[in-house]
């Protein structure tokens, strides 16, 4: 589905860059990025460039993914934006913890750059 705007929040510059390029090149989406939970909330709240979905890392210094997600839910303007966690934590216990947060989905690192966009679409029920 073209015309989508995605916000990527990750503290790793390289991962932000690769993920952004992958989504732009494979799906033609518009990408905005933020390197911390705090910047992510600011970027999401910008009324002119509100994202259709947020792809967010779990382990970040300062506010981690789950904390950022909870903060977002307190802001009615951005609470409705679906959030996908992108994590290198693959153990069952972590997965169950993430599922309990109420996020739209959990995707795992290392992701496949060629199918990341379709994974996002599938999880969110977007037509592909």
């Amino acid at each position: 589905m073209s015309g989508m705007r995605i916000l990527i929040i990750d503290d790793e510059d390289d991962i932000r860059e690769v993920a952004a390029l992958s989504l732009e090149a494979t799906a033609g989406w518009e990408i905005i990025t933020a390197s911390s939970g705090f910047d992510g909330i600011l970027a999401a709240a910008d009324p002119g460039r509100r994202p259709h979905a947020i792809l967010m890392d779990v382990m970040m210094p300062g506010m981690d993914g789950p904390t950022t997600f909870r903060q977002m839910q307190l802001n009615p303007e951005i609470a409705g934006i679906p959030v996908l966690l992108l994590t290198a934590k693959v153990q069952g216990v972590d997965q169950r913890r993430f599922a309990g947060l109420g996020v739209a989905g959990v995707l795992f690192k290392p992701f496949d750059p060629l199918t990341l966009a379709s994974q996002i679409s599938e999880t969110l029920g977007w037509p592909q």
Partner: protein
Amino acid sequence: MTALPSIVSWLLLVSVFLLGVLTLRLASRARGQHKELERLNEALQRSREYAEQQKHKLAQRSDLDTVKDEFISTVSHELRTPLTSIRGALGLLTSGMLGDVDPKAQNMLRIASSNTERLIRLINDILDLERMESGRAPLKLRRCSIQDLAREALDTMTTMADSAGIQIELQCRAPRDSIYFDADPDRILQVLTNLLSNAIKFSPAGSTVSVQIDSDTNSLLLKIVDQGRGIPADKLEAVFDRFQQVESADASRKGGTGLGLAICRSIIQQHGGAIWAQPNLDGPGTTLWLQLSRSARASDSASPEPVAPPAERGEGLVLVCDDDPGIRVVVMEQLRIHGYEIMEAGSGEEAIELARRQMARAAGLTRDNDATAQPIAAILLDLYMPGLSGWETLEQLKQSPATASIPVVILSVIPPTERLGQAQGWVQKPFNENLLLSELGRVLRSSGGAGQVLLVEQDQELARTMLHGLHEAGVRADHAATLQQAVDRCMLGPPDLVILETALPDGDGFSLVDWMRRQPALKTMPLVIYSDRELSDGDMHRLRLGPTQFLNKARIRPKQVEELVLMLVQRQSKPAAVAQGVRD
């Protein structure tokens, strides 16, 4: 951890026993006393130190587990993060999405890319194996059909097989009602797809990989037969070890991690089953065998109720023989927690000597008339030991009349072979607790359990005397002091004969006989009612099961009862006893 003081006290007890035995010997020989005592003292000191070390190690283990857990989780996360960037960058470059790349550079990118994938699989496999072997990935057991699981695995692998030009087929020879077993379906599916993927990878195009399902009374057998290049005889077992591949180039060429079969084995062992490889007899290629237990309740296989893994309660004296003290400690700890009493031997020679002495002691042939000395119920025997090997030890045990009747369970890194020989059971190392306990339990039950005669008697003093008498006569017997204990003991497997006092602290002999009458396996049990009570004709009628004798304690001495029991046990082989019971 509460078990530790008893390990220590047990070790000390054995040491004291050894001291006693050696002291007797020393008295008969006048020479070299001093030296031997010194040596003994040294040995005692060493065993004390060893016990202390083990105690310390066990205490540290649970802390270590937590640390290891966190470490693995962190390392896995830290490795994945840079890999995410590498995989992403390489993936985009190789896709050509970012413009054309020179063919030579393209080849380099392909190499970097496929090795990144391999590294990712490796991290996943290490994590998987680690979680399984530490017991942090408990099985979610439910009733499954092996046929359905195999079908699902085949469906999953069809694409891979098709692109390799290989045909895969499924044959189920097991009867419809015997294909159900207790398993974690996701884990079994993981094993089957892994084995199929291996078979496909190592098969030439145009060949067939066949999955065949069979069953016998207690277990399911599944084999995967390929027509590949085969596994050399000396590698048949090693392929299940970590990072072992038949040819060192296989890992890179076939994209494996070297952990697939180790994971399979771990999963199958967790299920209490076995996995092994055999060369095909009628041509090239390999057959991978899976043996899976259908659970203790194989007969009502249609019932969908989940069956918890067995936590068998054992009893009886078990001799553990292994040259590795670490393994002895682990095995002894596991058995002791589950109610067994233990003796240990560090070599085949020592095992034979200990077994001979203990059996003589139990039979009352030695002078230290110890009524508590019980015969050895089973021997756990390692195969590869310096000095006498396990096979040689087994042979000698079976040749000596005193020890020939003791069932032996082989503990070995190699899988059960045709050479089970005179052994009654087999547990493959590394084993888990359930596997060890269930195999030992099975062997003890099938060899007549911990005893062939069950004495139900609340008077401990009388029970001790009678048990001693029976053991002396070479009859295996055990004792239940309460109605509940008697029921529990019968549930483990029917004894050949029950000696019963009618008065019991938690009920009476009448209720026990009523209960036994309702059990198909017990309703024709030969009984000897040995009681204070004057029994009416009605009482006798109620107490009668199979051939039943009524003896009054006021008139018949324990010794006479023992003689009668001995006669009954020796005269009646099991089937004869049942037949006679029916006629009565």
